[in-house]
């Protein structure tokens, strides 16, 4: 995994974490409009980043599109990525 892929992956992980955290909060505060705005903004950002990442590096889920050959199987798998390198 080169530096650019790792940078984009980390950014994706950060944005996804924001969305996960706002979602948990919204589960018990469904009428909090400020939290909803935050969630929706980052949800949009996550979709854009996922599209960008997957167009370059292949599907993150097996429901995604791929060129030939099927890139979902390509390593490194998540437990093989060495985040020391960054």
């Amino acid at each position, binding site marked *: 995994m080169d530096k650019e892929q790792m940078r984009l992956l*980390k950014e994706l992980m950060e944005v*996804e974490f924001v969305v996960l955290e706002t979602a948990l909060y919204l589960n*018990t505060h469904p009428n909090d409009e400020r939290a909803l705005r935050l969630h929706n903004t980052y949800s949009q950002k996550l979709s854009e980043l996922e599209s960008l990442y997957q167009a370059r590096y292949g599907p993150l*889920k*097996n429901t995604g599109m791929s060129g030939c050959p099927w890139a979902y199987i390509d390593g490194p798998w*998540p437990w093989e990525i060495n*985040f*020391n390198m960054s």
Partner: protein
Amino acid sequence: MWIYEKKLQYPVRVDTTNPTLAAMIIEQFGGPDGELSAGIRYLTQRWTMPTNQGKALLTDIGTEELAHWEIIGTLVWRLVKDAPIDKIKGTPFEAHYVNHGKSPFPHNAAGEAWTAGYIQSKADPIADLHEDMAAEEKARATYEYLIRVSDDPGVTDTLRFLRQREVVHFQRFGEALRILQEYMDNKKYY
């Protein structure tokens, strides 16, 4: 249903090979207050949770726990994957190695296999949410012990993240309990 996302929830950094630390961290892979117990506990309790807030929370936190289980397995794997046999012999990881090699396996740090006896689902949402809040606090305490025994800055960083998640989950379950109590009070009077 579930769909796998090909990424970790948090970037795992392991600075040095350390089979002894791996043997301790496996507590959270297959111990009573570990991530597997947490995930299976919350996902199992969903069918008898009456409020939508509670159903959503058990689903999402249960799912997040499985992502934490993957992080713990990754920590264990990276701590042992490059270890030559003479760095395993004489460490607490040796007993694990003679059965499972370098594969993570769901048992606690003392080698006791994971069992569903670690979890509970009572079809009583008040009892279940109290169990869940206690589980989060017990997991937080375990992470604090693990942080004390860790001498690897990368591992400690990941453990701190996981400890913090326990605190957030405890908070959310407390809110779900309050919502549930209001729901039950309303049912009584209307």
